[in-house]
């Protein structure tokens, strides 16, 4: 006969076991391991760039020769102003990652709120929210961002700080966040519709729990797996969009992201002068980080929705 543990201890044990089981399953995927490893690397870069390569080099304090290919002094070569490319991309990590993660956070929050409300309340709330979501889904978000950003920048101005960000970066974050939430909303809504019919929701309602509480304490925890798996893909998309927008000139040269570096490389004629290190390095970083998130997202999806098992 096993002893019965007090309820809270039991719950904690179960939770710990569940987390352990999830981790072992998730990390069982080769792709997940690669992705997590790469991300840790880049997060370290983003967290302490000054520690790794010193302060961001500008055209003023650049020390190298112009457009030198990788050498012992400059591991990744230099750009047209003599700046060390390695220095630029390590600092660029912070900009690119922060933009991608913050804008994804906005998408997830807005998307989850809309999707949960639509799925939970149903009927006319669902109908109107979904119409709005479909509309946002259909708008060419990239071109919208492309068009809005300079307009907003003209009104706000290019200098100063908004919440710690340079204006152009702030606008990019906002724009990406507001144009990608529709994707999240759809997924959250369909999950909510499935979950809504389950018993625990019934029980909570019968006990008189308020709608908001039901959504936050009961539905939301069960939505987390789906949100996480898709969130990784949203981040990958955000990285791509930011890189593309910055490449077209909407970034900030004083806080360059990898995309801005690519724009600078293009303008300096890196392609036609064969400076492969200058345009290869930032792009490779984008590919690696993007791919990492995709691999993690796929592994999460696989862990939470396992395919059919062949053992009877």
């Amino acid at each position, binding site marked *: 006969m096993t002893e019965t543990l007090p309820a809270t201890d039991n719950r904690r044990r179960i939770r710990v076991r569940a987390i352990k089981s999830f981790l072992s399953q998730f990390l069982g995927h080769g*792709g997940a391991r690669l992705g997590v490893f790469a991300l840790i690397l880049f997060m370290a870069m983003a967290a302490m760039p000054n520690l790794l390569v010193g302060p961001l080099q500008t055209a003023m304090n650049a020390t190298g020769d112009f457009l030198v290919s990788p050498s012992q002094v400059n591991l990744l070569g230099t750009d047209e102003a003599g700046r060390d490319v390695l220095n630029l991309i390590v600092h660029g990590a912070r900009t690119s990652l922060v933009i991608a993660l913050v804008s994804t956070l906005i998408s997830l929050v807005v998307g989850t709120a809309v999707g949960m409300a639509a799925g939970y309340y149903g009927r006319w709330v669902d109908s109107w929210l979904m119409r709005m979501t*479909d*509309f946002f889904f*259909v*708008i*060419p978000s*990239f*071109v*919208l961002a*492309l*068009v*809005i950003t*300079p*307009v907003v920048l*003209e*009104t706000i101005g290019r200098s100063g700080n908004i919440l710690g960000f340079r204006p152009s970066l702030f606008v990019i974050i906002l724009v990406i966040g507001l144009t990608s939430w529709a994707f999240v909303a759809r997924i959250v809504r369909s999950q909510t519709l499935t979950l809504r019919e389950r018993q625990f929701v019934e029980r909570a309602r019968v006990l008189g729990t308020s709608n908001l509480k039901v959504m936050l304490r009961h539905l939301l925890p069960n939505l987390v797996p789906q949100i996480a798996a898709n969130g990784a893909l949203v981040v*990958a998309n955000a990285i*791509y969009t930011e*890189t*593309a927008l910055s*490449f*077209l*000139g909407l970034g900030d040269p004083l806080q360059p992201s990898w995309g801005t570096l*690519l724009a600078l*490389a*293009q303008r300096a004629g*890196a*392609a*036609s*002068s*064969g*400076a*492969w290190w200058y*345009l*290869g390095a930032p*792009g490779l970083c*984008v*590919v690696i980080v*993007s*791919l990492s998130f*995709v*691999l993690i997202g*796929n592994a999460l999806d696989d862990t939470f929705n396992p*395919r*059919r098992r062949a053992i009877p």
Partner: protein
Amino acid sequence: MSGGVRGPGGHHVGQVVFRAVITLLMVGVLNFLLFRVIPGDPAAMLLAGARSSVTTEQMQAQRQSWGLDKPLVPDQLVSYLSTTLQGDFGYSFKFRGKRVGELIIERLPETLALAGLAQIIAIIFGIFLGIYAGWRRGGVIDNLTTGTSLALYSTPPFWLGMLLVVGFSTMLGWLPGYGSYSPGAGDGSFLAGLIDRLRHLILPVLSVALGLIGQYVVVARAAMSDVVTEDYMVTARAKGLTNGQMLRRHAFRNALLPVVTLITLNLGYVVAGAITVEAVFAWPGIGSLTVEALNARDYPVLQGIFLLLGASIVFANLIADLIYGLLDPRVR
């Protein structure tokens, strides 16, 4: 339930078309509002960059046709919508008062050539590879294909383009990395001109196609993987069908559903996706027109392009819905 055209699915077609029209209308309204919320006098703003190159008569005509002297809503909105429906997108500033509609039509073929060719190549290679990989899961070739496809899918096409230019144009000198044709190449013979154009097409098309192939392989493989584990495949095997028969008669058709939907939706983003690649290769299509208009604050052009893109996405979604209804009897 809405009225409207009754197609093979009954009310389904009517509802879908109706929704598409409403969405298109909403895109138009958004377009209108976007460029009217710019602070300051809209007309001055909209014509500011062109004051020197636009004649006063044109300005007056624009003010009138845009109804800028009347209240914003509903008068201006209505006149905007009606002029747009008539095909009048206004005048560009940068290009000396040229009509936006003309500009767009001029540049469209180049973009369509680039994006269209890329899509065709991607569809052929991507789907075949993906279906093959999904059918015979496991093994070195499958893992290699999947890994490469995921990497390609995560690669920005414009960066790929820059790399290709460095490699094949700058270093090897095999292919041109700039523009869609070399002036004077077509003077000799039609064939010479055609070959010149094809040589210019290769690198940009490859940049776009490779990323798409990655996406299609991943989706086709996933679709086929799902199908292979379905019960009706066991039934097919029990019936004594050969592998080829199982694939062709049962698996393929079912795996096709998500793939076709993806392709159709992608077609709506054809132009949007081309913007950055055209910037890299100085390709004279809508993409570079967008960038030029952006840099010149040429709002009428931007407005026209935004509408075009919105319309093509709405249209692509509509076609995707209809096709899905045709292909999957469960939805009808």
